[in-house]
């Protein structure tokens, strides 16, 4: 639980961890259910659409202007997003 919470970057309270452990256990019963099916020769499907590998040429198109990109910033420093220290 702690490991998964760190991977998910979620700070959980002890109450939340307890509740989530139970709920995750219940929901993971679903995983056991799908394990019932014989899928030995079945390829996985990531989606149901007919398109694959949609590419375009590497050309600059529409750009988001700097001011627009920074407009929602919780904290701004010059032309960048201000963040707490990383190291």
């Amino acid at each position, binding site marked *: 639980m702690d490991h998964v919470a760190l991977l998910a970057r979620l700070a959980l309270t002890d109450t939340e961890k307890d509740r989530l452990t139970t709920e995750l256990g219940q929901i993971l019963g679903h*995983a056991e*259910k799908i394990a019932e099916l014989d899928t030995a020769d079945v390829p996985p499907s990531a989606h149901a659409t007919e398109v694959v590998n949609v590419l375009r040429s590497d050309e600059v198109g529409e750009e988001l202007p700097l001011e627009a990109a920074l407009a929602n910033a919780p904290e701004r420093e010059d032309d960048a997003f201000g963040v707490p220290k990383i190291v």
Partner: protein
Amino acid sequence: MELFDLTIKQASERLSTRQISSVELAESLLDRIEAVDDRIGAYLHVDREDVLARARQADERRLAGEDGPLLGVPIAVKDNICVKGVPTTCASKILEGFVPPYDATVTIALKKAGAVIIGKTNMDEFAMGSSTENSSRQKTANPWDTNRVPGGSSGGSAAAVSASMALGALGSDTGGSIRQPAAFCGVVGLKPTYGMVSRYGLVAFASSLDQIGPFTKDVADSALLLSAIAGHDRRDSTSVPREVPDFAASLEAGVEGLRFGVPEELMGAGVHHEIRGATEAIIDRLQSAGAVIEPASLPASVYGLSAYYIIAPAEASSNLARFDGVRYGYRASGPSDMIDSYMKTRAEGFGPEVKRRIMLGTYALSAGYYDAYYGQAQKVRTLIIQEFNSAFERFDALICPTTPTTAFKLGAKTDDPLEMYMSDVLTIPANLAGLPAISVPAGLTDGLPAGFQIMTKHFDEQTLFRVAAAVERASGFTQRPNLL
């Protein structure tokens, strides 16, 4: 009849013939919202001056010689679809105050057609839920009984159309989030074929399942609104480069000689007997109208719910990683360093259901579990797709109820996540297989709407609308909720 009671088609005709102006129509809707939305709570954001300005623009365009089925028509938009310059919050604290610097492709399409975007509607946070109770902002009530839920996650859009607070609305459907609230609120709700409508500008929940679709008062309006938003988009690489057909072409064609399958597994599944009764009544009338209706079998569909509750959270855990307090939205105060900032921001910004799904998804994708959970779910998905493909060799459409029950009471299911999930059991298979599916009101049972669901093969929305129109005629249901 008040202007807000009109369908899109009726309003469009009156606008075309200059009987009414877009401003008058917008005012009628705005006044209606002011009169009843305090009891319903469908809208998160309505800006009267902004709406009237858009309506005036529509009138000017008409004066300049333009016309079109949506010009001047008020349409509501779910709050996970970006409208430039208008707050888009996905009903989450983590996006409080976020104002998109761009329009979603569907928004551009609506604006191009001259629709008047009347407001942003309430939803379950990040589209996760089946009742709209997971909104961080407010509850939305079902217009048929304000002690009951409107369904979810597009509950606001469904309620808005049901209570005549919009002539049409856009929602999104990942596991049933358009069709289920449409059924609960007695309106038409459509999830198009995956890839039919661009997802660019739709805040992603589960990228392989999400689709934007219309809520309308009737089937003809649904075809009309879908026509405006469907089509290939270079900015959504999952959108399919196909020509958009004339969806309304076969609306009057009837069902003579068409073959429908009723999947046994979707008629069992805890469907309450009043819903079953309403469904069977429609089936009888369709048979009288010349359809050949037989039982069908989709054994893998029973596993659809389980596969979905691995796939959707897994994709969500990846999509929601972007909400980190760096570039937009909420940021927690007083973090010790960057990681702490992420952890606190997300802990404080996300609601409990969202955290639950992120945790489940992260776990399902983590090393050592990927193959058993996500990998296996993807294989089950293949089986479901194959099964549907076989079924559509025999049948023109598959039919069943949209939900196992009518709308439940507010607060009734919030303690048990599994019960909440069951209300999606009939809708999820269409998302997994990418099939087009529509819910049409079948009638009332104990004063609450029941929905009838139709599914067709990929990109066969023309048949879908044809059958839906026949169901609409068979049910004869035209009632609106009494909101006095």
